[in-house]
């Protein structure tokens, strides 16, 4: 199908100076095991096209219709471009030697995936100390993209990845307790059932017998890695070049200034051993680089694409992308998205982080970070589940609380970083990784019922 577009790129409509086609494709198989039975099986394939033109203005079009005439789609984008008034006409990549990185992967047959899913579900259920209903979903995907433009630029790749999601629900009288855990990996064998069971068990254990009470106030608090991951599924935007350009991040204007404790180091990288996301080129064809964001607590960079890097006079890190957050429609404009967003782990495990607290709180579960974080100011009010820490030990489970504060203050007040790096996934879209450890924060305000 891309052949038709390549041909159309050689005969651009009048008024179009450059045009770019971004083909995204994937093949995917998913198996869901629930209560020990195979409940749901899915197979899908997709081949879609994003078109951008430069000329009268920057125009966009998108199609999933493989019968649509390529020249018409380009013409549609060009027509849309006539409505653009902004001066952003940063050009597309110039010619480079064409290359396509295809990581060959036989993949698993469906029956092999079913066997793996069943085995993993049995192992994980067996290791959880509570009686639970477990739903486990295994996803095998071969995905990639190709970017070609009218300058002769032609770059692409195809990579395999696996995602395992677990959802456990248990009952206590009339009430239900739930925990979830999701990881990505490069092969199915990389998933460790012990890791899943430990995380689910820890989260569930903090929900049963929640009879303790935590008075509202400021506490030295350990945030479990799953909670930190939840926060950064939204909070990564602090480091977006697009947000910096529009001054709608609390980090705006703070380049080279201290925005976190010296223990905090944050980067965004194209590939990571513990992650299934291996992204060599972004959706504009830029070679993805390691983006250093925070070094010893100092803000040193933002994630950038062609346009934001040009406007901010900073290096393009190859973070161009489209689907970063939930949206009712498919975003066609090019924005900024992470690849593998990582807060580097420290040296103390969670037990040690907790062991150094006389009186504090342990937060093991949080929800709804999309609506409870204001990304412009960094203020947050996040519903969580908490347990008391007394003399270095987790004592009582206290049920629902709300943690209140500001993201920059949270990072500045981090006085220890855990060694337990959890490489999670942006759940709903499943197209980038978020890797974070547990954090200990002094003076976090907690309010409770």
């Amino acid at each position, binding site marked *: 199908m891309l052949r038709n577009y390549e041909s159309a790129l050689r005969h651009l409509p009048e008024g179009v100076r450059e045009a770019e086609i971004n083909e995204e494709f994937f093949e995917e198989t998913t198996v869901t095991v*629930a209560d020990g*039975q*195979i409940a*749901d*099986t*899915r197979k*899908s394939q*997709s*081949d879609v096209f994003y078109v951008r033109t430069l000329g009268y*203005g920057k*125009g*966009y*079009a*998108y*199609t*999933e*219709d*493989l019968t649509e005439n390529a020249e018409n789609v380009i013409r549609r*984008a060009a027509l*849309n*471009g*006539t*409505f*653009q*008034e*902004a001066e952003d006409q940063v050009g597309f990549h110039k010619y480079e030697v064409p290359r396509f990185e295809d990581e060959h992967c036989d993949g698993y047959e469906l029956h092999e995936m079913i066997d793996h899913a069943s085995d993993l579900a049995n192992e994980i259920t067996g290791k959880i100390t509570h009686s639970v*209903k477990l*739903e486990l979903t295994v996803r095998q995907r071969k995905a990639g993209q190709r970017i070609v433009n009218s300058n002769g630029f032609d770059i692409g790749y195809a990579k395999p990845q696996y995602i395992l999601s677990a959802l456990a*629900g248990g009952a206590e009288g009339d*009430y*239900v307790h739930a925990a979830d855990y999701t990881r990505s990996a490069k092969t199915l064998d990389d998933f460790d059932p012990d890791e899943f069971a430990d995380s689910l068990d820890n989260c569930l254990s903090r*929900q049963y017998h929640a009879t303790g009470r935590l008075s*509202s*106030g400021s506490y030295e608090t350990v945030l479990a890695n799953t909670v930190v991951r939840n926060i950064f599924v939204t909070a990564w935007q602090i480091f977006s070049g697009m947000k910096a350009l*529009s001054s*709608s991040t609390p980090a705006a204007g703070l380049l080279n200034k201290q925005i976190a404790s010296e223990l905090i180091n944050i980067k965004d990288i194209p590939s990571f051993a513990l992650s299934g996301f291996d992204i060599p080129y972004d959706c504009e064809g830029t070679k993805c680089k390691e983006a250093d964001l925070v070094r010893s607590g100092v803000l040193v960079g933002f994630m950038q694409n062609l346009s934001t890097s040009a406007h901010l006079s900073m290096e393009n890190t190859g973070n161009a992308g489209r689907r970063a957050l*939930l*949206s*009712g*429609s*498919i975003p*066609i404009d090019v924005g900024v998205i992470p690849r593998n967003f990582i807060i580097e782990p420290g040296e103390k495990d969670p037990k040690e982080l907790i062991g150094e607290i006389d009186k504090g709180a342990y937060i093991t579960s949080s*929800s*709804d970070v*999309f*609506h409870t974080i*204001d990304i*412009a*100011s960094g*203020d947050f*009010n996040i*519903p969580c*589940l908490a347990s008391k820490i007394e003399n270095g030990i987790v004592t009582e489970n206290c049920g*629902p609380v*709300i943690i*209140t504060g500001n993201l920059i203050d949270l990072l500045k007040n981090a006085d220890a970083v855990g060694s337990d790096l959890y490489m999670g996934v942006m759940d*709903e879209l499943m197209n980038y990784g978020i890797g974070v450890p547990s954090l200990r924060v002094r003076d976090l305000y907690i*309010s*409770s*019922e």
Partner: protein
Amino acid sequence: MLKKDEIDSILETARSGVSDFSELFLEDREDIGLSMSSGSMDSATSMHIHGAGLCVMNGCHRIYLHTNDTSFSSLKELAMKAAEMTGAEQNPKPRKNVQSMNGKCIEVPLSADGMNRRAAVVRDMYAAAMATGVNVRSLLTKYSEEVQNIVVANSDGLYEEDRRTFSHIRFNATVEACGSGEYDFGQIGVPGGFDDLMSSVDAADAASEHVRRMADRLRAEPVVSCVVPVVFEGGAGGGVLWHEMCGHNLETTSIINGTSDFIGKIGRRVASEKVTLIDDGSIPGLCGTEKIDDEGTKTRKNVLIEKGILKNYLADRFGSRRLNVPMNGSGRRQNYTFAPTARMHNTYLAAGEDDEEDIIRSIPEGLYVKSLGGGEEGTVFSIAVKDAFWIKNGQIDHRVKNLTLSGNALEILKRVDRVGRRLIKDNRGGYCGAASGLVETTCFAPMIRVSAMNVAGSGTREE
């Protein structure tokens, strides 16, 4: 365009494995969008979504496949894959004929004049918001429109077509006042085209009102976290509470995966007698309304809770099989790439008998909520509060800010002790996200009082 016998053939092939049901969902959708930011029109986009979803069921096992190659040969191959996945048999089971597929795919007919009219609205919204005198650090105004055509055919002989049109205006703003900033977005939509939207809303007014309210919120006072009675204003203001507090937990997906507090409680008291909760996908003119759901079932009024007694779950076909409850027109999906799951349409609390002024007068110290932001369901739900006021001595007093409400649904439902007489239908719906993607919903209610709720605020004090 697929012919009748081609659809027959695809469904039959899909069912030739070990299965008792097959369904083909065809979608063709055109979207356009225009947006303005940083003082100039910066984006005009057009999108063509096109593809097919094929579902096969055998008892409580479902197989779902999708592709955007809708040629007969590709879909036939997909059907063979589906049959393979269930275990193929030699002799396909006999099935009823379907009617011929109409297959009309309507193009978005945007002439230059049409685009210019829409662009003018985007510019007017931008200009109006910037002219308010509020310190707007960043602003994006947007208009979007979609026309979706679907065909649903299944092995039970069902054949349905539907054409759905939506149009929206949206404004994302970052505003500064009193030394702090806030980001928020607003959206207004109608099930109709551009002219329908323009006849029901003053877009420029809506945009300027949005940034003014944001600035007012920044000037409001923070609240120290507390537990107080909460009054929710009628309309969409309190509607989100019902959506997040119970709506998702009453979808069969949550019941099946064991994460809902409503498991096994049909026929039992789950709320105060004042609570009758309904979901209805057939109310004319609302954003959550559809003629048929995405499995071809006619939408209807579903009474979920009646005078505090749990009556029904929202059930799609798969959920209905797994829980042995009736399907009730609730199978929805964002597009063909998602298998349908049970979802809300238009969720509302039935009107009660209490006087609204009395409800407010009854509160010595508490919270009056005018509008809510988004939230998340779960065993503990949470909702961001956008516009709220403190109630003092039975009167609405000063504006407050930076609040979140949370609680356990089963506890809060029992604390609803007043329900107002006036039900205000409100079309300020939005997108709701779950396992089958984002779908349009609305939620609204009469004024209610909850006797005690956990209010988390940004005001702090040392204990």
